[in-house]
């Protein structure tokens, strides 16, 4: 059988108007179902004819999944809210500019106009071997093509690899972890609310998935607590081109200090592992310390402990170190 990576295959298209209908469809079709949010990750898979779902469930008609609501002292963002809506929302701008910056650095304006925050955090990895349709571990095979002595792996993982060395590409994921957000996941059997940090999974947990979502599950909303509203934020994404490209490494941090020492801090990085990593050891080490160059250096050095570069991605080690340093220094010290 010859392979052709072109022309979307036909599929059943379902356009439910409510979450309940969507969950019924997902339940009914099980592994044959494909959730379509903004579609920017989905269409790649479908046009490459690598994924062949029988039933595509388009969420764009479900109004309860859209929009940003005040919720307690924080915000609840519907999973189908576009990145542009996130960027423009006054509450996000005023209190959670970390998320604004992360969303604003994603892809391109048109993609942000269409791509959703739910899709952004749930998207698949961009490992170019896996996305080309090579039968690797993540695709159900028994090899990682990106982790051979001759593999081209400039954009791959330096931490947390387990057979697969792919990385998570999401820009908003580290920001949501830093903001201590939680993810609302619904299925026919009920609703779960999990911390953002635990939403993402590495290959050690399940090598074929990027998140905890199982067939039948739907991410419906993201909740951001009031805890970090208006805190001192730092976001930086280093990429090749200033449009479209995913992060080589990104960092997001939320911090509060009393003018002298760091009181509370959460810091996460992405582009270095199969899931965005919260840097707990760094947080513990800098808490109570002055926001100084010395503390920044300590944080940077600690962050990269255990990093294991591949043939072409050793640069990610100093890059991650330097971005963590900058996160401690803050925007004015960059």
């Amino acid at each position, binding site marked *: 059988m010859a392979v052709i990576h072109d022309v979307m295959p036909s*599929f*059943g298209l379902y356009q439910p108007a409510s979450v309940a209908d969507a969950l019924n469809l997902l339940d009914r079709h099980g592994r044959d179902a494909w959730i379509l949010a903004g579609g920017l990750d989905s*269409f790649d898979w479908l046009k490459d004819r690598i994924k*062949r779902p029988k039933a595509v469930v388009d969420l764009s008609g479900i109004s309860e999944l859209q929009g940003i609501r005040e919720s307690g002292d924080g915000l609840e963002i519907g999973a189908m809210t576009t990145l542009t809506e996130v960027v423009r929302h006054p509450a996000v701008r005023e209190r959670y500019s970390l998320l604004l910056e992360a969303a604003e650095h994603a892809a391109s*304006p048109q993609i942000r106009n269409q791509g959703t925050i739910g899709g952004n955090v749930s998207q698949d990895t961009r490992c170019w071997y896996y996305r080309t349709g090579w039968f690797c571990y993540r695709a159900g*095979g028994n090899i990682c093509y990106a982790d051979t002595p001759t593999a081209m792996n400039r954009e791959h993982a330096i931490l947390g690899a387990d057979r697969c060395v792919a990385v998570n590409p999401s820009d908003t994921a580290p920001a949501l972890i830093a903001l201590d957000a939680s993810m609302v996941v619904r299925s026919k059997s009920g609703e779960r609310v999990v911390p953002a940090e635990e939403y993402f999974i590495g290959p050690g947990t399940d090598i074929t998935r990027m998140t905890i979502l199982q067939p039948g599950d739907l991410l419906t909303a993201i909740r951001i607590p009031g805890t970090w509203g208006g805190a001192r934020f730092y976001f930086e994404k280093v990429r090749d081109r200033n449009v479209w490209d995913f992060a080589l490494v990104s960092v997001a941090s939320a911090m509060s200090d009393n003018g002298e020492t760091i009181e509370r801090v959460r810091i996460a990085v992405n582009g270095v592992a199969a899931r965005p990593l919260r840097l707990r050891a760094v947080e513990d080490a800098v808490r109570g310390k002055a926001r100084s160059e010395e503390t920044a250096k300590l944080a940077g050095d600690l962050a990269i402990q255990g990093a294991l570069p591949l043939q072409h991605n050793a640069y990610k080690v100093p890059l991650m170190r330097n971005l963590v340093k900058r996160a401690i220094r803050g925007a004015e010290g960059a």
Partner: protein
Amino acid sequence: MEEPIIERGTEEKRPISRRDFIKGVIAAGAVATSASYLFRSTGAMFSQSSAQGSVERLITLNVNGQIRRVDVMNQETLAMTLRYKLGLTGTKLGCDRAECGACTVLIDDVPHYSCSVLTHTVRSRKILTIEGLASPRGELHPIQQAVVDEQGFQCAFCMSGFVMAAVGFLKLNPNPTRSELAHGISGNLCRCQDYNKILTAFMRGAEYMRRA
């Protein structure tokens, strides 16, 4: 008529390189194919159309202010509907993968990559393409006029998408700096890399729009 099996004979054995051949690629495709192969669309699609939540093929679109009835496959993108069903070939396909912006159209005034929008998802929305930008009497939109006046663009294959992105951006940001405008239209590639002249043309277009 066609020869169904073309035998090319067995060639002498050649030494195979010390490297391995990638059987994985071929195998991966084969697995996916045999697992979920679908036969041609027509029959399969109509038989599904009665299922709960699924879509009808014959739909109504609002394109450039006109109501158009059109038969659309489930997997059809808006770019293909515009170009091959509605004869609106001004919208270009540069990459078909949301990587270039040549297919940009406005959906409810917002720039979208029409290559990456299922037509079925925009049934109740207002679609504006490059063909709908000039007035019915043929007066160019200020952005179009500015492109002409400044000789913006070279080969212009990216032009429709760029113009639509600019029109969408300027609706919300009528008085941008050059840098803000660049950010606003940054989702469009130009391989002639005439970006500087494009910006000059659109800055003038923004001025025309403010004056109009």
